[in-house]
């Protein structure tokens, strides 16, 4: 095994180009487990800890450029307003110690369906900025996950940052685990209301081979909200609408039975979380709407 310690992003790209099998390691919270338990013996470890750029974020007009290695703790503490869904998801990641080390780049690189950031990124809308010595590109989050623990990265590419759309409405994230802390998702759900475009986006974790959006549920809800004039009248969402949204979210799952839970439970739980988080976000939207009307 070789340990590569690039001091800059350019050196990292060069190293990855020279050794495409090199495994990038940042927080180490996935890679080191595999090494400690003898599940993996990469030829090269490519340490990204020394590349300061990866630990920085920038809040722009439309979106936040989030460095791949910004620890979850920083996201929780500093980006709650801009990225509320991701901040909530970050708070559910493992333990404080892990949140101090791990970042979104690792979740994306591992591309496990159980990664906590995925549903939030899917719901918010995001692009993954990846780069190689050949150049840089942005992969829309919807096209990023290609299979179980597989993603759209080429062998010589590294994840540099994620561009996440700034919240234009309430967002929520919920995750089921069999413990009240430090737990891997049995399944998870993210939702983001986008009042500007009058759309709703979702993300489901751990209930299909990859993180997925519940597109049929989104389309149904977009139509129902439009039809009922909900965005304008700010009415309480009809229980039947919430129910059907929840059912469509359940239907978007393609889960398996495993040691963490049954497929049937995962479908059920995603439905419950979809209904609850829709209620929470919609109530919050109604609240802010009333406040802004009152102010005007």
């Amino acid at each position, binding site marked *: 095994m070789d340990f590569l310690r690039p001091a800059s992003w350019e050196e990292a790209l060069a190293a990855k180009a020279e050794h495409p099998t090199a495994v990038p390691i940042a927080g180490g919270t996935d890679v080191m487990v595999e090494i*400690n*338990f*003898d599940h993996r013996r990469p030829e090269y470890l490519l340490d990204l800890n020394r590349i300061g750029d990866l630990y920085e974020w920038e809040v722009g007009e439309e979106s936040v450029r989030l460095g791949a290695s910004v620890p979850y703790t920083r996201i929780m503490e500093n980006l709650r307003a801009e990225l509320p869904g991701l901040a*909530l998801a970050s*708070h*559910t990641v493992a333990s404080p110690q892990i949140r101090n080390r791990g970042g979104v780049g690792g979740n994306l690189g591992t591309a496990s369906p159980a990664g906590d950031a995925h549903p939030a990124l899917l719901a918010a809308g995001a692009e993954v900025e990846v780069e190689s010595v050949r150049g840089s590109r942005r992969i829309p989050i919807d096209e990023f996950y290609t299979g179980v623990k597989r993603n759209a990265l080429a062998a010589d590419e590294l994840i540099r940052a994620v561009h996440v759309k700034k919240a234009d409405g309430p967002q*929520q*994230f*919920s*995750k*089921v*685990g*069999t*413990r*009240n*802390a*430090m*737990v*891997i*998702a*049995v399944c998870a759900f993210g939702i983001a209301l986008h009042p500007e475009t009058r759309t709703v986006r979702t993300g489901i974790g751990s209930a299909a081979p990859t993180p997925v959006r519940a597109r049929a549920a989104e389309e149904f809800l977009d139509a129902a909200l439009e039809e009922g004039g909900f965005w304008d009248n700010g009415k309480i969402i009809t229980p039947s609408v919430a129910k059907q949204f929840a059912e469509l979210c359940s239907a978007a799952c393609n889960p398996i039975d495993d*040691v*963490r*839970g*049954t497929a*049937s*439970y995962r*479908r*059920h*739980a995603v439905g*419950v*979380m979809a209904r*609850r988080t829709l209620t*929470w976000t919609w109530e919050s939207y109604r609240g802010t709407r009333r406040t802004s009307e009152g102010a005007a």
Partner: protein
Amino acid sequence: MPANGAPTKITQGSQTRGGIGESTLRPDSTLKVTGEFAYSSDMWHEDMLWGQILRSTVAHAEIVSIDTSEALAMPGVHAVMTYDDLPTEVRRYGLEIQDTPVLAHGKVRHHGEPVAIVAADHPETARRAAAKIKVEYKELPVITDEASATAPDAILVHENRDDHHIGHVPHPNIVHRQPIVRGNADEAAGRADFVVRGEYSFGMQDQAFLGPESGLAVPEEDGGVHLYIATQWLHSDLRQMAPVLGLPEDKIRMTLAGVGGAFGGREDLSMQIHACLLALRTGKPVKIVYNRFESFFGHVHRHPAKLTYEHGATKDGRLTHVKCRIVLDGGAYASASPAVVGNASSLGIGPYEVDDVDIEAIALYTNNPPCGAMRGFGAVQACFAYEAQMDKLADAVGMDRVEFRQLNAMSQGTIMPTGQPVDSPAPVAELLRRVKAMPMPPERQWESSEGADVRQLPGGLSNTTHGEGVVRGVGYAVGIKNVGFSEGFDDYSTAKVRMEVLAGEPVATVHTAMAEVGQGGVTVHAQIARTELGVAQVTIHPADTQVGSAGSTSASRQTYVTGGAVKNACELVREQVLEIGRRKFGSYHPAWATAELLLEGGKVVTDGGEVLADLVDVLEDEAVEIEAEWRHRPTEPFDLRTGQGNGHVQYSFAAHRAVVEVDTELGLVKVIELACAQDVGKALNPLSVVGQIQGGTTQGLGVAVMEEIVVDPRTAKVKNPSFTDYLIPTILDTPTIPVDVLELADEHAPYGLRGIGEAPTLSSTPAVLAAIRNATGLELPRTPVRPEHLTGQA
């Protein structure tokens, strides 16, 4: 060759305080908070090698061939050993039945069985070498439950059994069977106005002690070996190791290294023999440290169980009879299965008075992971089932669940199903009263001005509910556990106590082989020595095999038995010290001959408080040292047909009230409070007593809602050998645990004390389950209960 990081002598001193009944601090706690306390995995030696074990990847197979040549040829590898390299003809070991191969021979019987061992100069070299050992398996069908174990064409897990249980078991795939029959349950059933039946199952729990199995074996110049080890019983290890290593016991020196928890999981051998074999083979010190993955294969677990119960009661709520059948899965090797069967059967109806009972308990041999000792030892599984039955029956009768229990509660004088009278306090009804009388935690504690605090709701930080679907439930349970080794076992402890004057101060040194696994035995030994010998300074000598056996740190027995031995040795030392005093000073004061004399505050005093002499002057340069064995009252085996016999030494009782909040839609549980009332006889160290009760309670909570080793029924392979998927409670899963300690002395025990470590683990689980049933209205016949069980999605 002294090993670095060898256990340090612990000295504790105080002025005149620090005797029994006080909450003195642990003598090892400074070292433990500074990181200097040397645990078994911290041992280190110049030039040491690292041992690695190759384990079977399948549960049941014939071994066709093993090829170690490639591994042996690797640079840095010093030894590779298989069954064929074992030094003597004794190649099996076991606590009671010697059925466990040191290394697999011809066959593997469970997933993760040791097949070969390697020593190399770096752990990674050892791992790579182990991976290069080629083992060819021919897989056999797996036996995983009672049906497959006792099928007419079942493969025998152990051919040619010759142990002492084979004569009375109905099938060779049954390790041991214990019926207990008293009165006539069938006839009594006729008097019942209400009968309830239930089938219950209990999942496989892991001890999950945090310090993984580890140790350092150092070869000695005389051809022997010195093992620094974390164990529960040094002398039991020694007895099992010596024949396999081909060494006389006096050539194996054992020193207790720091133990990172045990809970029964260190009662069997793990890496002890392997490390010694490699050290003796290579002539170099060998360290073995399991990682968490291997630890799940490196020790026995709590027996999973299927339990079938029938309870009857009259209209006025009196129990008429109990019938039950308890099937424990012992896995591939016997370990402590026979004794677990003895407990499950003899304590199978709980702390209740019932004259007509028909009980049967068996343990199976299967290809599942071996099961053996874990805190509560057979009594835990039974308590889960009989307490569920008591709730069901109370409901059928139409009585309050606690009152129904109190009405049928045993008390001093009750005759157990084994025919043994209960001859010390058994305050079962009182414990229930106390736990019920504790104030209830307020409702909706999660509500705050800023909305719901998810940390206090089911799901916790995962943000699954802000109060939706949350229903509160309350449940009660009470249990009975035996203390000490039962069924005629010669259960004794040895203590060596020395008294001398050092630097002008009288000092006592207590030397036992007791394994301090965290329970606080060392604290209590110092307290006993202070009380009995009136000294401030007590030194606790490291535990090793240079002194006689202290028995096992299990069965809630150490404070009772080794504590009793320390008390006894102190008394003998005191007599001798007084004898010296009489010789020297007897002529100066008549009280030396006539009064009851005590040692207090470094002085010899009369029971009237008159000071006769300073201990410093009595002892001068003389040291008094006595090593003595001490036994509790003898017990008898249970009759193999009727289960009758005075099998137990002492009983221990605890009651719990659980308050839970369940997210009924998602099936997530938050335990809000787990109150416990326990009779401890006499609290030698109240702070430690409460700590034990809270810790035991939490382990019971774990197996109620999350802890289970999942074994694939098709392959008998373990599916979750990691802390990612075997979950134990975090601080956010654990509620406040108010404890009410009752002290009713047992006149047969030293200071009237009662062994306390296990009882709280029993009733915690059924109390939590009862509370969840109360919140959901579901029957929930198995534990742990998982979200899918609570939502109908299993």
